């Protein structure tokens, strides 16, 4: 392994301080991940196949823990990973004993950031980089049209790696010249990354720069047809262009497929993420996207129900409907996970009542479609000078919660029923616990008000979510905590710590009990309300996790990130089961369709993308918004998708049409890409502009009325 040898020599020439510097730079990442890794491996993280790379990473982590005197953690981790007792010891003692002299030795064995950076040790003639690159450019410009688009994908990663190599090897002026010459050729959707890159002109800058770590630690994935690849390979070998060939070998992952080369538009649809497209293998795992069987609840077809129906004058229609619903829920969806794949909380009596309410409401649901658009009721937050940062509605649309930049969380009742606190313990002692209306009696009538404020966070509240039973509220904040609030006492019950950095989003599972959070530390965590440590840590994103969503069956979690990818994680195993690429900006909203088959995502680029979860394919692209999409929601039947954006509009899309129009033949094709029509304009059913209110939340009531919310921004 020649490159490794080179690394070592390179490191040895470095002064020992380099090692410390790197450790510092790495602190944040490792620290935030380390407490979690203990617990998640404890449950069932895969320990089976430890590749040599993983082994190295593990060693690095151990080394770090050791250095920070976290002996216990070292023991646990070693036991979990199945490493021998002495795997670390000799070097560790060496480093500890030998002081500064040993630092070099430590550095030699620590396969962390330094290695990552030192991979750019290969020394080519800096002046030739431009020649190499333009040579390749010339070649790609002259190949047949059908190959050109595919091969052009190589430009961006090559450009970045060559630039970084130049910077790493202290060829500052050459690097600058190289950047100036070729940065203009790159696709416009890499603009953001190029801006980051342009700021980076010194080797010292590379330390601790997350974008760079990402570039190095993850191979940039390209999808190229076999023919095109052969063409490229032949050219590079003919020209003896080893410099480029090495980069392709080391830093690029070329996913070769057999078949027709893709067109420019097909490539553009899928590219744009920080680390290239998703590998096809990444989306091969089976996903049980079906819905769980609803528990059988006998609908009390009692008098009051009948009465209500009689009033409306159509009592006969009711029964067949009910039967059909019953039979529907009895059928087991072949794509659904088994009922007890993950343990779910048992239904309480109150939950059953709520389910009944839900079914009653559902029968009155309006059937939406392109010719039957929903009404939109807009809740405007007035005088929100401090900044409204998050909004959520309860599923029954009775409460609305807002998270604000001044760290407060506020809850409003949008029904005439006011918000009341539970009486104090002393008063509670006085009430008759046997009475039928005990739940009513425990409430303190004196505290009734339309809204309640909850204090506790020490930073802007970026994520907010009601529990399905409306007893709890979750909020995530810049202060690094996720807080659980009781909506009975309007006090904070738990502060879940672990993220350390801003937590951008959090959401309750549709069945309650579990919740997911994601933030600046690039990991999403799965929690249970009664555990103060996370149950799972979903790590893999290369930048901040900006939004998190639970799948309707609670077995999966989707996360959107600033690295412009969406990942779907299996709650059971903690593995990433889907990676969706195609967005050109940080993703700020996600929505699962009610049947669990589809996922919609919206980003700062103003586009909504639709994904088929089962096949792992992009289903459509909805263009129309001109600014960040902060909210997406499917109607209760999944026929209409509503999107709300910073551009002050709510738009409605005919997603049924989008899904129907797609030719299903494409799904079976092995190439893993489909032809997308550019039919956004046909799918757009309506655009509703507010006066000056960005739309930051949307919610379909159980009867398919669309509620929207945002703060008036004069």
């Amino acid at each position, binding site marked *: 392994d020649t490159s490794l040898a080179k690394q070592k020599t390179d490191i040895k020439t470095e002064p020992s301080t380099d090692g410390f510097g790197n450790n510092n730079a790495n602190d944040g990442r490792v620290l935030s991940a380390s407490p979690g890794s203990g617990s998640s491996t404890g449950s069932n993280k895969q320990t089976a196949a430890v590749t040599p790379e993983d082994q190295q990473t593990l060693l690095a982590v151990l080394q770090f823990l050791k250095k920070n005197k976290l002996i216990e953690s070292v023991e646990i981790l070693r036991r979990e990973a199945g490493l021998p007792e002495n795997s670390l010891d000799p070097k560790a003692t060496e480093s500890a004993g030998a002081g500064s002299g040993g630092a070099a030795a430590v550095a030699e064995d620590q396969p962390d950031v330094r290695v990552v950076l030192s991979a750019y040790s290969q020394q080519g003639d800096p002046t030739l980089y431009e020649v190499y690159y333009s040579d390749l450019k010339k070649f790609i410009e002259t190949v047949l049209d059908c190959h050109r688009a595919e091969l052009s994908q190589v430009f961006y990663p090559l450009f970045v790696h060559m630039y970084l190599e130049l910077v790493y090897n202290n060829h500052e002026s050459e690097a600058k010249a190289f*950047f100036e010459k070729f940065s203009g050729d790159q696709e416009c959707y890499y603009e953001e990354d190029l801006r980051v890159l342009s700021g980076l002109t010194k080797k010292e800058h590379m330390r601790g720069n997350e974008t760079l770590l990402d570039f190095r630690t993850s191979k940039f994935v390209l999808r190229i047809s076999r023919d095109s690849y052969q063409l490229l390979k032949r050219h590079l070998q003919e020209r003896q262009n080893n410099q480029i060939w090495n980069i392709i070998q080391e830093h690029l992952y070329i996913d070769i497929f057999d078949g027709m080369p893709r067109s420019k538009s097909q490539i553009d649809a899928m590219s744009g993420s920080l680390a290239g497209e998703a590998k096809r293998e990444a989306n091969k795992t089976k996903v049980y996207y079906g819905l769980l069987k609803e528990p059988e609840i006998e609908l009390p077809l009692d008098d009051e129900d009948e009465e209500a129906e009689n009033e409306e004058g159509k009592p006969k229609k009711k029964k067949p409907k009910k039967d059909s619903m019953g039979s529907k829920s009895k059928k087991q969806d072949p794509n659904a996970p088994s009922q007890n794949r993950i343990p779910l909380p048992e239904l309480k009596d109150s939950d059953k009542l709520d389910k009944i309410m839900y079914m009653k409401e559902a029968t009155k649901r309006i059937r939406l479609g392109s010719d039957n658009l929903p*009404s939109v*009721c807009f809740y405007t937050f007035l*005088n929100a000078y401090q900044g409204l940062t998050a909004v959520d509605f309860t599923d029954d649309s009775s409460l609305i919660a807002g998270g604000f930049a001044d760290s407060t969380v506020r809850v409003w009742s949008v029904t005439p029923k006011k918000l009341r606190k539970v009486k104090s313990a002393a008063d509670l002692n006085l009430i008759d616990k046997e009475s039928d209306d005990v739940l009513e009696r425990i409430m303190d009538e004196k505290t009734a008000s339309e*809204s309640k404020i909850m204090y506790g966070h020490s930073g802007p509240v970026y994520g907010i979510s009601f529990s399905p039973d409306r007893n709890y509220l979750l909020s995530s904040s810049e202060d690094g905590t996720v807080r659980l609030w009781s909506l009975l006492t309007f006090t904070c019950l738990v502060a879940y710590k672990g993220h350390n*950095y801003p937590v951008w989003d959090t959401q309750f599972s549709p069945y309650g009990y579990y919740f997911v959070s994601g933030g600046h530390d690039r990991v999403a965590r799965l929690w249970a309300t009664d555990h103060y440590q996370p149950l799972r840590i979903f790590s893999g994103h290369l930048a901040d996790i900006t939004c998190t969503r639970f799948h309707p069956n609670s077995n999966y979690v989707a996360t959107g990130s600033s690295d412009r990818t969406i990942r779907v994680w299996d709650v059971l195993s903690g593995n990433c089961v889907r990676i969706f690429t195609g967005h050109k900006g940080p993703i700020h909203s996600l929505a699962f369709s009610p049947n669990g088959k589809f996922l919609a995502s919206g980003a700062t680029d103003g586009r909504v993308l639709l994904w088929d979860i089962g096949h792992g394919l992009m289903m459509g692209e909805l263009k129309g918004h001109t600014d960040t999409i*902060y909210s997406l929601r499917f109607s209760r039947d999944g026929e209409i998708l509503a999107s709300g954006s910073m551009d002050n509009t709510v738009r409605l899309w005919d997603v049924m049409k989008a899904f129907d129009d797609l030719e299903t033949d494409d799904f079976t094709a092995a190439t893993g890409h489909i032809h997308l029509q550019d*039919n956004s304009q046909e799918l757009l059913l309506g655009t509703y502009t507010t006066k000056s209110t960005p739309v930051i939340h949307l919610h379909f009531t159980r009867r398919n009325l669309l509620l929207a919310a945002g703060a008036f921004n004069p």
Partner: protein
Amino acid sequence: MSAMAEERRQKHCSVVLPTESMKAMAESVGVGQLQEDSCVALSEEVSYRIKEIAQDALKFMHHGKRRKLTTSDIDNALKLKNVEPLYGFQSQEFIPFRFASGGGRELHFYEEKEVDLSDIINTPLPRVPLDVSLKAHWLSIEGMQPAIPENPPPATKEQQKVESTEPLKVVKPGQEEEGTIQGKGQGTTTPDGKGKEKGLIRLKPRSTHELSVEQQLYYKEITEACVGSCEAKRAEALQSIATDPGLYQMLPRFSTFISEGVRVNVVQNNLALLIYLMRMVKALMDNPTLYLEKYLHELIPAVVTCIVSKQLCLRPDVDNHWALRDFAARLMAQSCKTFSTTTNNIQSRITKTFTKSWLDDKTQWTTRYGCIAGLAELGPDVIKTLIIPRLAIEGARIKAVMEGPVISNIDKIGAEHVQSLLLKHCASVIAKLRSPPDNVEQYRTEYGYLGPMLCSHVMKARTQAALQAQQVNRTTLTITQPRPTLSVSQSGLSGSSGPRTPSIIKVPSSLTLMSPRPGTPSQPSPPATKYIVMATSAGAASTQQVITLSSSQSASPVTSTVPSATSTLQPLVKLEPGSGPGLTASRPLQKYIVVSLPSSASSSLETKSSVLPTSISSSSLDGGMKLERSESPGASTQSPH
């Protein structure tokens, strides 16, 4: 493409802090001599770190759902990097950088004043801001966006413009025209037209002009109120036309209503209705959300008719149709100003029309008056080039009527009006054109019959101007194009033979005017008071800020709000013809001069210097308010310019 790349590269690379800044910063923390090399190294490092922080701050902005980066975003970004954020008072808006230069160095700095804590403690607390509240409204009802104040106007002016100026947009296959989408959002067009629009055929998008039931009702109510008998209702209706954002779809109907109405009522000589219709035109023009360009072909002929028509009323010798001509002339001038472009050439076409019929010897005095009024309203330049050269000829013609054998009373009245009109408009222009020594003989030779009268008018104008220059700081007074409002007394509507007062021009009841303060009436001989009331054209607020210019002593405008009060006085309201060519504000100011005359109206000239800021409720004005028109020379010289 290459230019774009060039631009982008520029954007990417060039931003590094200058080394001078490094030196300045070093000095500020006490490091005196900084090596050039260190400066370069530092500036690169600092620039890089700043960029990093800015990038992180952007994240906070995005998650804060804002478009504006704030200082707290920077603080949070610093916190991410484990750097202590900047503490202290934060400015909500931009940070006021100060600039200083000296010794060949330029410096931008943030002026940090020392804050005396006791000052802060002792200052009374600011008013508690309103608490966050929730308000619900219908953004859409089954796919239709209701036209309620909470929603934006259905079609913005730009959209209306695009629709009317580019109706033949190329429709790409599979892609609808933008207007159609908008329409669909509002449910005005049916989506079935889509199939026919495929292919590169240039098709004007079908736009249905069906009005909803509510709109039809509204249209009916508004038009009835506008020409109906109730003045209060009319004021409300006009207010609605002038401010409602959702009228776009009804605009074609309104425009037809007006043009047809004028056509019919000119024939029937129904002065009152013509005035009502002109007020509607004005209200439409005042509405900022309407794109009127499309309907000028209907509106302009109607307005011009009201200016130059030979006969506008049944009894031209008694009825004051002159006021209507003035009013319409102002409307015309206003629309020239707003709508005239190099392609439609409204102003030059209108000017030609007026000039042509004025030059015609056979033209009647009424039409003649209208032509001159229409031209004069177009501004001093037009007066200078078109009217003043003809003063002598026109003077001769007037002389012929006035001093010659009495042919008809109507001609005489007409000639009188033309004379006063010419004097009124030309005096101020001539005052500016000629240098002070005003010689009557000179004037006579130059302007003929009108010369002597002009001379005295010019002199009055000069003294007036001089007086005002001394009295008030003229720069604070904005004289704007008037936005007159006029109405006719109710008797005029019926057209019956009852005694008809000459037109009384009223101020709409929605406008709050001022009256003498309650104590004034009890004074034995209270001096005439003059107030200048300025109001924005949409002044619907019940209390509004009133700038009172006192002509006697106070040099700065006094601002006061107007409470309700009653008065027994009958103030005269005069509309100030403005000279303001430099009209910059998008919403022009309305200015009324209220002259209250206790007993003898003639005393106004002498006593106008004493001014008392007082108030009156608008309702009390309705009955007895008279608008003093420029017919009387004495009043016209009162105008403050």
